[in-house]
């Protein structure tokens, strides 16, 4: 993974437009926040291999970036994205990392299901 190049990411989003794609979407504080000095409750959510189709998909912002996908009947949204890569399996992976390299948010799209 490397820093998001918005033009390249936009091309990748366009390439998957109007097709049945698998979505992985997540956000996480990590599981151990309750042990930290602030004793915060962990907040974690993910969806893996939901099937979607989007008619508009944009990457916006000056970095960290936002991505919004307009579906036939709904939306997909992620904010705080910093890095991206396209894997050997042609999966588009977008992630937001904190200063220490921890993942905080992820939005991924693939024409084939992500590994289960």
């Amino acid at each position, binding site marked *: *993974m490397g820093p998001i190049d918005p033009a390249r990411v936009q091309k990748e989003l366009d390439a998957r437009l109007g097709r049945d794609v698998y979505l*992985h979407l*997540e956000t*996480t*504080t*990590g*599981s*151990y926040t*309750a*042990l930290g000095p602030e004793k915060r409750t962990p907040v*974690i959510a*993910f969806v893996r291999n939901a099937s979607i189709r989007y008619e508009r998909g944009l990457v916006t912002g000056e970095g960290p970036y936002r991505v919004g996908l307009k579906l036939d009947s709904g939306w997909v949204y992620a904010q705080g994205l910093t*890095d991206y*890569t396209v*894997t050997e*399996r042609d*999966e588009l*992976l977008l*992630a937001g*990392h904190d200063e*220490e*390299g*921890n*993942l*905080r948010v*992820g939005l*991924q799209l693939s024409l084939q299901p*992500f*590994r*289960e």
Partner: protein
Amino acid sequence: MSILPPSPERIDHLVEGMTLLDPSAERGIVVSLPHPDDESFSSAGTMALASDAGVPVTYLCGTFGDMGRRMGSPFFANRESMRDVRERELADACTILGARYELLGMRDRMVEFEDPHEVATRIRAVLERLDPSTVITFYPGHAVHPDHDAMGLATHLAVAALPDPKPRLLAVAVGDREQLRAALGPQQVAVDIRTVRQRKLGALRAHRSQTEMMFQRWESERDDDEQMRAYREENLTVERFYRLNGVAIPLPR
């Protein structure tokens, strides 16, 4: 900067009232925990002492740990590469500890949503095949991460279903020390790991994606308070366990 002061000469204050277990005298050890790296944090010293004496040691690992948020520091893994990265790290750690590993292949974070009896049946099959004298797992309800609690419960059910004589079942509790002491009292069993503390550090380092940041902190002594230092020193000196055989553990709703 050394993160490893010399081993303390005396450990009496750390193991007061506990039975000292000699891993080299075991017939076999199975460590049953959900994530690659749980074995190194909790039991690396015990595993190394056993395997050095020719005792077969197996790490039965519930998941690939591929939903973690640590990606290395600086990050080198991503959500999709994480599974293979962590299995390689696990293989390296097990080589250092002289252990073999088996994966149950459950989805990270999702162990508590599986049927505990089904998971227990799979664990039991492994225990029947390997016939260990000691099994190590997490203390259900006292292990912070829901996967830890769920794997502890399933392992408890698996051991309870074995015919007598059952293996000794030892449990690792995680979390605030004072709270754990208040809820569970002191541990009953301790292993003196002073002679293999380098191996424990090596195994922890092998789980690079997960521990790199921790070692960077230790070495820079950034964020390093007295309590953290004491905790680290203790866990590189002794490994302490609760006895779980015969303890009634409520099933979740």
